[in-house]
């Protein structure tokens, strides 16, 4: 699929901009602060309803405006769809698909993107929540049902934590509080948590060969990259639960319930849920050593790129139920971060994709293999370069 037209109204720095795009490679070139990233961010936002730069939506709306509107025409398998999204800070988004109002969730999956950004380095060097989000975002792209499971699980954990907190306080005061209802929340947390956890483990299993292959290509055959799921439900050490078992939601549900029973006293004491997908991590290793802490800056970059490339391969291959799951590739300011060798390898790998959108401050940063349309971005205006 590819985006053929994009129109922004009051999005970030843009009061109004309309651009047409083509399949193949497009580079947005311009100095810092001119609005290159804002363009690609809007496209990525349409595909996931989240931004890689900020957590809230408020920053997406131009200062002084009430709402931002993103419209994009997506060409997919010979059909064209018009996606429109109205972003109002602090309130629910409103969506239209081919001119008719629809629930925002219906837009998810219409446009698929894989975005490479300098922030990706945090996948390797940062905290577990970034890696969990990486899994969950990809799961949602592959099956929109997961969006519901995710929000249900978050809600259940919040409720359960609130209960554990008051139960702890009540117990210290010598009463039982509402601890009777904890069993109910355990059951709900186990049932939704198991679906999320099993989904992630299955995802990593499918992603693994792609990550290994991509890492080999980006790094030029140095070392083996490995991804595995680290579940908080096993008490660590030797009794790591076999991956195969973790792909079965029923088995996981039973294990989660068992772990919650085991940890109940400690959970009440501390007032938080100590077990479940919200405490899990994805372990990334290079040649047997954890990437976090051991990998060099360059190796970390290669790993981050490998994760994104693997997502692209997975979406392209397995998500193609309607014949065209190939996502739009967005490379936001990444070339400036890479050394020449990695730059060239990455360029070779992404060049054959149906649509590649690149942002760069200096045209020389973009490898020669990625020649295509060049659009100059200056002061909120987009003009076709030479």
């Amino acid at each position, binding site marked *: 699929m590819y985006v053929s037209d994009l129109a922004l109204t009051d999005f970030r720095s843009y009061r109004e901009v309309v651009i047409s795009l083509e399949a193949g490679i497009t580079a947005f070139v311009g100095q810092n602060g001119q609005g290159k990233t804002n363009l690609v961010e809007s496209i990525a936002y349409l595909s996931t309803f989240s931004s890689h730069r900020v957590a809230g939506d408020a920053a997406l709306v131009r200062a002084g405006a009430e709402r931002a509107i993103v419209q994009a025409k997506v060409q997919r398998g010979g059909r064209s769809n018009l996606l429109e999204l109205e972003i109002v800070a602090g309130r629910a988004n409103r969506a239209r698909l081919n001119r008719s109002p629809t*629930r925002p969730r219906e837009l998810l999956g219409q446009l698929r993107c894989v975005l490479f950004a300098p922030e990706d380095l945090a996948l390797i060097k940062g905290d577990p929540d970034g890696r969990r989000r990486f899994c969950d975002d990809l799961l949602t792209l592959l099956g929109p*049902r997961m969006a519901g499971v995710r929000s249900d699980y978050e809600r*259940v954990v919040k*409720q359960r934590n*609130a209960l554990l907190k008051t139960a702890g306080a009540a117990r210290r005061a010598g009463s039982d*509080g*509402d601890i009777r209802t904890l069993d109910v929340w355990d*059951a*709900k947390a186990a049932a939704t948590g198991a679906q999320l956890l099993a989904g992630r483990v299955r995802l990593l299993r499918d992603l693994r060969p792609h990550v290994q292959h991509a890492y080999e290509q980006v790094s030029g055959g140095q070392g083996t990259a490995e991804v595995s799921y680290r579940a908080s439900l096993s008490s660590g050490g030797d009794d790591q639960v076999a991956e195969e078992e973790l792909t079965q939601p029923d088995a996981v549900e039973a294990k989660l319930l068992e772990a919650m029973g085991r940890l109940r006293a400690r959970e009440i004491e501390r007032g938080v849920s100590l077990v479940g997908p919200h405490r899990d991590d994805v372990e990334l290793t290079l040649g047997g050593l954890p990437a976090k802490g051991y990998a060099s800056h360059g190796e970390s970059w290669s790993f981050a790129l490998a994760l994104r490339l693997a997502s692209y391969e997975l979406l392209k291959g397995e998500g193609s139920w309607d014949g065209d799951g190939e996502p739009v590739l967005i490379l936001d300011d990444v070339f400036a971060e890479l050394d020449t060798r990695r730059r060239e390898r990455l360029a070779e790998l992404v060049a054959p994709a149906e649509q590649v959108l690149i942002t760069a401050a200096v045209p020389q940063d973009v490898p020669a293999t990625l020649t295509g349309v060049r659009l100059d971005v200056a002061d909120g205006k987009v003009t076709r370069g030479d």
Partner: protein
Amino acid sequence: MFDGALQDLVEELGRLPGVGPKSAQRIAFYILASDPADVSRLATALRVVKEKVRFCEICGNISEETQCRICRDTRRNGAVLCVVEEAKDVVAIERTREFRGRYHVLGGAINPIEGVGPDNLRIRELMTRLADGEVTEVIIATDPNVEGEATATYLIRMLRPLGLTVSRLASGLPVGGDLEYADEVTLGRAFEGRRTVDV
């Protein structure tokens, strides 16, 4: 900010659910510009609703007597009891004209974040009601969200030892809709709760 009485009114209105500061201001100015007779009618309505309306001592539904209309109605089937979260839900189910049993209004759902536990709901009253054995079937009609589902699970566990028929409302596809427009979660639920057809 306004002076004295007007500011008080804006603040009071702003505490109502679904009314933000801007709407509160708008309503306040509307009231200020209205006919005095209209305003005192509104004021009376507000006062009387608090004086007159109470909760049915049996089911917790809204009533102006000690027992609500449904609990007093002898044509109702006393063997079937439908458990709902709010009095609004009674109205919704009554509109269907399908249900001829009686109701029990819990007054909310289990919600630890808001500090609502089983003791804050009318669950003890429910258990007392079920003790005499007149009710043989309980239909649990709490909302199909996280809190409603948790409340249903809790109730089912409480009711299990009593040996009653307990059922939960089905969730799934809306009538008159198109399958293709159903969201994935609803459609997934509908699949889970599918029924075998007699052939």
